[in-house]
Every structure is written in structure tokens, then in C-alpha cells.
């Protein structure tokens, strides 16, 4: 089953005619993802053409969803307009909006987060690589690739991956794939301080997903989301988890690339997060090179 999206999921792309959006629309189409509509205000009626694909473009998300049957939107819209683009997907009643955009003002996200509370829509991101449910074809072709992750590094399987960082997700996925272990779904929840979906939300979904048998959870300094996830998982998660926390060497008070990766007032340190995870009985990988091996060790110990 995977979580959130399957190879059958129909997606629409907001900002499909922009540089960033069109590049990744093409890569998703090549991966075999069901990209069924694009949205660019003012370009409704045109189409986005790539190889044999002709993806219709609409002026509004509501119209695109109605005409194409898309249930998921991915947002490649520039920061000043991204919050509005997310809200448009919420208004259209989509199941899922995935915001790739980096650099959205946090005050905009505070309002978006409030609007999400009374909606049926889940948001993933912003400032995230998106998510991938690998397909069954060669190099996981035929899967659902939403966002900017390289599709070919994946392999269909039973390990769930959740992370705040893009390239660290790829690192974990590649470690698994090269060791012969596939993934159910890989979710990048993003590096911003206010985001739509937390580690905890994704852990709960993996826990309930019959296809997912084990989980890699990747966190980093800043906030307390990893601690919350650890506290829940220690009591409730039936599946083996390995974790990694980035930023042990980061100086306090400095923002490490991601808007949310900052240790402030002694809160959000790597040491604190690692302690919380270990206290919950979760194995923590000592280095980013050992994420898959740490999980495989936990799995073999449980057998």
C-alpha cells in the first residue's frame, strides 16, 4: 500500500511552466508518475508537452482538479506566492499538497498552518524534496515521484524513510538500495520551523501501513519534533526504527542552511535529540554513513 501516495495517484503541478517546475515535471513524467495537470494562472488552455505526454494546463487549481481527477498538488511557486498557492490547493479540497518551495516567510506559514486545521488537506513541506513511492519497474520506474528527489536511486520494498533534509534522504535511500533493501515510501518533511507534517505524523502512518516493515527517521538540530516522535514511538511503534540526527557539530545560535536548523536557548541540540531517541529504545546511527546498517542490525536483532 505505501503511505500517502501510490503509483496510481494522480498529481497536478502548480508552477509547471517555471524553470524549476518544468524540469521536475519532466523527470516525474519520465519516472512514470501520473502527472495529469498543470496550473499556471494566465496559461489555462495551453499544454505542457514532454516526449509523448501532453499535460493540460489550467488557470486555477480547482478547475485542474475537477477536470483531471488529481488529488495531490505539488507547489513549485516562488516564495512570495507560495502560501497562496498552498491555500488554493486546500480550497480545492485536495487530499495532499506538497510544497517544495524554499524561503517562504514564516508568518505566511503560521497563517497557512491555521487554515489547514479545519481542512481535509494534508500539507507536506515546505522547503522539502517531496516524496517518492517507488514503482516496480527497473530503477523503481513506474512509481509516484512528487518533488525533486532522484527517482532512480529508489527500489520498491518495505522500509519507510522520513527526513527533514533532502540530500540526507537520498543518502539513506541509496544506502538501502545498494544493500538490496527497497522502500515503501520516502517522505521529506522539510527544513522549515513551521511545516505541515511532522516526523510523528509520518511515523504513525508507517506504523499503520501493512507494507512498511521498518523505518529510518532522519532529524536535525532545532525544535522538538524528533523528541515528540521518539516519545510516541517508544510506547506505540511496533516496527524497528533507526534514527540519525544531523548537526552535532553545529555552533549554537547559527542557522545551518535550513531555516529551522538552529539551536536556540539550549533547545534543539543534537545531543538532546539523540538522548530522547535512545531513551525511547530507538537505535541511533553514529554517523550518516551507517543509517542503513544501523537499521539492518536492529532488524536482525529483532528476528
Amino acid at each position: 500500500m505505501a503511505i500517502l501516495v501510490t503509483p496510481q495517484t494522480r498529481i497536478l503541478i502548480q508552477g509547471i511552466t517555471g524553470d524549476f517546475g518544468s524540469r521536475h515535471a519532466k523527470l516525474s513524467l519520465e519516472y512514470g508518475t501520473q502527472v495529469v495537470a498543470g496550473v499556471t494562472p494566465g496559461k489555462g488552455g495551453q499544454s505542457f508537452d514532454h516526449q509523448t505526454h501532453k499535460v493540460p494546463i489550467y488557470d486555477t487549481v480547482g478547475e485542474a482538479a475537477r477536470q483531471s481527477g488529481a488529488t495531490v498538488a505539488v507547489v513549485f511557486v516562488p516564495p512570495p506566492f507560495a502560501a497562496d498557492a498552498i491555500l488554493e490547493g486546500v480550497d480545492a479540497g485536495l487530499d495532499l499538497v506538497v510544497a517544495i518551495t524554499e524561503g517562504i516567510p514564516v508568518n505566511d506559514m503560521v497563517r497557512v498552518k491555521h487554515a489547514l486545521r479545519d481542512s481535509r488537506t494534508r500539507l507536506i513541506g515546505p522547503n522539502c524534496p517531496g516524496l517518492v513511492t517507488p514503482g516496480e519497474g527497473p530503477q523503481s520506474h513506474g512509481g509516484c515521484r512528487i518533488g525533486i528527489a532522484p527517482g532512480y536511486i529508489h527500489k520498491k520494498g518495505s522500509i519507510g524513510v522520513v527526513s527533514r533534509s533532502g540530500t540526507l534522504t537520498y543518502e539513506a535511500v541509496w544506502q538501502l538500495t545498494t544493500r538490496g533493501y527497497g522502500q515503501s515510501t520516502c517522505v521529506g518533511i522539510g527544513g522549515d520551523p513551521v511545516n505541515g507534517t511532522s516526523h510523528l505524523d509520518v511515523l504513525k502512518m508507517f506504523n499503520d501501513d501493512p507494507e512498511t516493515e521498518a523505518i529510518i527517521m532522519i532529524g536535525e538540530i532545532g525544535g522538538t519534533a524528533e523528541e515528540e516522535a521518539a516519545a510516541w514511538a517508544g510506547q506505540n511503534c511496533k516496527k524497528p526504527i533507526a534514527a540519525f540526527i544531523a548537526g552535532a557539530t553545529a555552533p549554537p545560535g547559527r542557522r545551518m542552511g535550513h531555516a529551522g536548523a538552529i539551536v536556540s536557548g539550549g533547545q534543539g541540540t543534537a545531543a538532546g535529540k539523540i538522548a530522547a531517541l535512545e531513551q525511547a529504545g530507538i537505535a541511533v546511527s553514529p554517523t550518516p554513513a551507517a543509517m542503513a546498517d544501523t537499521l539492518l542490525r536492529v532488524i536482525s536483532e529483532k528476528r
Partner: protein
Amino acid sequence: MNIHEYQARELFEKFGVATPPGGAATTPEQALEVAKRLGGKTLVVKAQIHAGGRGKGTFKNGFKGGVHLCNSADEAGKLASQMLGQVLVTHQTGPDGKQVNQVLIAEAVDIARELYFAVLLDRATSAPVIIASTAGGMDIEEVAEHSPEKILREPIHPVLGLQAYQTRKIAAALGLTGPLMSQATKLFTALFRLFMARDCSQIEVNPLVVTPDGRLLALDAKFNFDDNALYRQPEIAALRDKSEEDPREVAASEFNLNYIGLDGNIACLVNGAGLAMATMDIIQHYGGKPANFLDVGGGASKDQVASAFRIILSDPHVEGILVNIFGGIMDCNVIATGIIAAARETGLKIPLVVRLEGNNVAAGKQTLSESGLTIIGASDLADAAQKIVQAVKNA
């Protein structure tokens, strides 16, 4: 982004947050003028640099202290002339110190009570929160640890914002009653308006003081701004003082590179913020010390890689470089070409370990090995980290 104390004062004045009367000066003449305008009160003259510990600092010209009290305008002008253009060394500036280009002259107020008041974003609730305490003038984290009962947290609705009843609730909790309560509600409302209107991520007023003559004043403040919102805050963006920043960080930001200097000797160049942090961590794990954080972004170009090398090598402590690229979509061969060009251009003489993974990696590795440069290849991240640590030890 940090701002100077005088700039924080100006923001307070603009938004109606009560603060001691004062003004900034860039010349002794201006300082004299500001002091005359303030009248015959006790004044404080403060050197304006971002670093803390100004009061106990020493100027390189021998003049002691970056904060002085005085009782006349002439004295204020004289103090300003001893500070302006001079280099102040404090325990936070390092031995090089910082040049003082502005001084702040303000009324030195007497203090009856010191309080604490802050507005910040609460990540757990995704909404603003106000933190207030009767224990002002102290490190709030220590207060939270030792006397948590002295800390008041008032959550703010993400859309409705701060309500008048909340300002009265906080005022009452701080013991600001009678005529002080209306001053408090006015000050809190103005401060919250400033927080929202200027996309702040934090405003910490410490201390917020009550004077013996019954005034409530924001005496000192620390601001943090949301960098993501600077595009719509030109007034705030203009407050940036690049002379206060690490010149390597300023140079990096001009090339859209994310660089933070550290005190180790192994430089790293990585794509992606999470992987860049993790690369620093693994260098340390294998017994090395990272010299920097450097994220070249997802779509690093050849030019960006070359400028990244120049910035890394401008740090005299760097004795080795680890390049760690997971080129998921980027072509590894293009990156390899960029690394070779940069290494040649900079006449690289220190060990360089390159770990490449991803798209077209075989061609990239071949390009590196055929370059004729002594580049140490690595099979994976752990191998790369161990090799650079070893290479620097052997050098």
C-alpha cells in the same frame, strides 16, 4: 540577521514602544548635538558594535570601556570622540576587535524594577508566544531552569493576534498596576505590532524597566528577523551591517552559497544543508575538526564550486578539503570538471578528498582520476571522512 542597539531603538520609536530618550551619532559633533537635545540629565554613551561585553572592553587606543556615564553634553562629545573610529576589543570580538562607527547617546535612567518581556515564534504550536517574567536583567534560560514559576507564557492566536485582555493579564502578572498598567498595555501592543509588521522571529526586551518616577521603558532589546521575509522588508534589510559579519560569509552569500566558518582545520563542500551538517559531524566522529559548514545547494554550477573553493581556502587554518556531493540529479561529471578547474585555478596544495555519488558518477570519477591532480577518491562517506582526517594528520 543582527542589528545595532541604536537601530533597535529607532524601530521602537517608530512603533511607539517606550524607550529612554536618545539618539545615534557618527561624529563627536553629532554626539554633542544629541546630548544637548537630551538636556541636563545623566547620559550614557555606548559604542555600537554587535558583540557583547562592551562595558568591560578596551579600545586599541588604550581607552577603557565601551559604555560610559556622564553629566554634561561636552563630556558626552568628548567620550564619543574617544570611541568613534576606534577599535573595541571585548571577550566576544576576538583579539582583532571591531571598529566603532556609531555611538548611542541616551538618558541614563534610574531603575526601580527590572522585568523581562519577549515575543517569539513557538515552533511547537506554530504561532507566536509572549514570554514574560518578573526576573528581568538575568539570563532567561537560567530563570526558566531554577525558578520556572517566575515565567509566564501567553500563547497568541495565529490569526487574531495579541488581544487587549492579554496585555492586561500579562501586566497584572508582572505587578504593573495602576498608571503602569495602561503604559504596559500600550507598550506590549506596540511591540507585538512591530513583531508582526517587520517579520521578526524574536524580540527580547531584557530588561524592561520601571523607573522610580513611574515610567515603563524598554531598556535593552535583542532582535531576530526572518531571513525569508527580508525581500518584503527593505527597511530591515537596509539595517544589515556587513562589517559586523565574517567576510567569508559575506562573500559566500554573494554567490548564493551557504557558508558558516568554524574553528577546525578540515574544510568541507557539500550539496544540501542536512548532508553538509552530517559531513561536519562525520569528520568529527573520525577524530578531525570541521573548518566550516558549506552548502552549495541542489544545483551547484561550475562557477559556484570555484567560488566555494576560493572561500574555503581564504581560511588560513584549513589543512585539507573534503568534497561530498550526492548528485542525485546534477551530473557528477559536471561537478568533477568544476572541482578540477577550481583546484587548478587556486593552485591547490593541501589534501583533497572527493566523494561523488549519483547521476553519471562513473564518468565523474574518471574525469577526476585523469586530471593529473592528486585527488584522493573515496568509495563512500565514511571512507571519505577517514581519508581526509588521515591525510591531514600525515601532512
